[in-house]
């Protein structure tokens, strides 16, 4: 039990954190003027809350797909409401949970290629996990939390980490 593998070093954390975000969103929705929170930013040149949630979803789905050698589902960034972003996060959870652990286990040395308009980045699976996927994923989860705290939503660290099961 509890043996470490590429799958259990990554996917359970993605799912758990997205579930925590769904509970955090439920608290944010109870705020007066809640829809305006989706446009809130920590700095004028940082992305607003909605984009942070969309980035959480993208980071998770691409993380699962790339490590498993699959194609990620398309989620066009069309959400404008809490209901829509909750639906997107749930669909992302469903996708990550649908990936067979055996498709990800053993991916330490698998080549992961990220293509950008002006070039590409090549990683091994293990480097992709620890230098890109998890830092980016936690970055957007934490920034979403930080935006809500900065705007007075009553949250604590346990909302971020999730309650013990």
């Amino acid at each position, binding site marked *: 039990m509890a043996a470490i593998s590429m799958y259990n*070093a990554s996917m359970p*954390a993605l799912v758990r*954190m997205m579930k925590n975000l769904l509970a955090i969103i439920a608290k944010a929705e109870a705020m007066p003027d809640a829809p305006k929170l989706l446009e809130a930013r920590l700095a004028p040149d940082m992305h607003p809350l909605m984009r942070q949630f969309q980035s959480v979803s993208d980071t998770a789905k691409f993380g699962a797909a790339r490590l498993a050698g699959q194609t990620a589902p398309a989620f066009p960034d069309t959400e404008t409401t809490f209901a829509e972003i909750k639906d997107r996060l749930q669909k992302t959870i469903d996708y990550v949970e649908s990936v067979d652990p055996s498709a990800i286990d053993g991916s330490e040395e698998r080549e992961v290629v990220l293509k950008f308009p002006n070039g590409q980045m090549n990683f091994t699976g293990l480097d992709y*996990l620890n230098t890109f996927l998890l830092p980016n994923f936690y970055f957007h989860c*934490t920034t979403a939390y*930080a935006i809500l705290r900065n705007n007075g939503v009553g949250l604590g660290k346990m909302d971020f980490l999730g309650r013990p099961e």
Partner: protein
Amino acid sequence: MTNSLIYDCSVGSCIRALNNVSSMLDKAEAYAAEKKFDIDVLIQSRLAPDMFPLGAQIFIACTFAKNLGCRLAGQEPPDYERGPVNLDAARALIKRTIDILTAIKPEALNGAETRQITFSTSPTTTETQPGAIYMNKFAMPNIMFHVTTVYALLRHNGVPLGKRDFIGPLN
């Protein structure tokens, strides 16, 4: 990259994250000098009145990091004395923590994923879990939370940083 999954996911990731925080502090210091304000005002800033200030975010990240590395290596982590954290103290803490982590060899973590580790989850509660669970569910989310909050505080206060400063050098 060491071919040790548990080492890369814990000690390796913590060293990288703390080096990135150190570089971000360099840019914060340069920004303070350019704008002619006391850097320690920034180190005391908060995102909300009931959140910890930047210096404490660094203290907590360092504490979780040395606890994680030492416990996975089967060592007793040293105590870090709580106190006000200014820029110099923050830098000293980061250096001390990176030194502790760098001294831990990947082989020291062999078998750590299944070893039972007891850790405090609040001032009054402890939990005992296998190393992999302690790392994945508790220590790493906490560390990433606090280092991201450092970035968020610096950005919120105008320090010119980008995501690349947070992610750090790749490959």
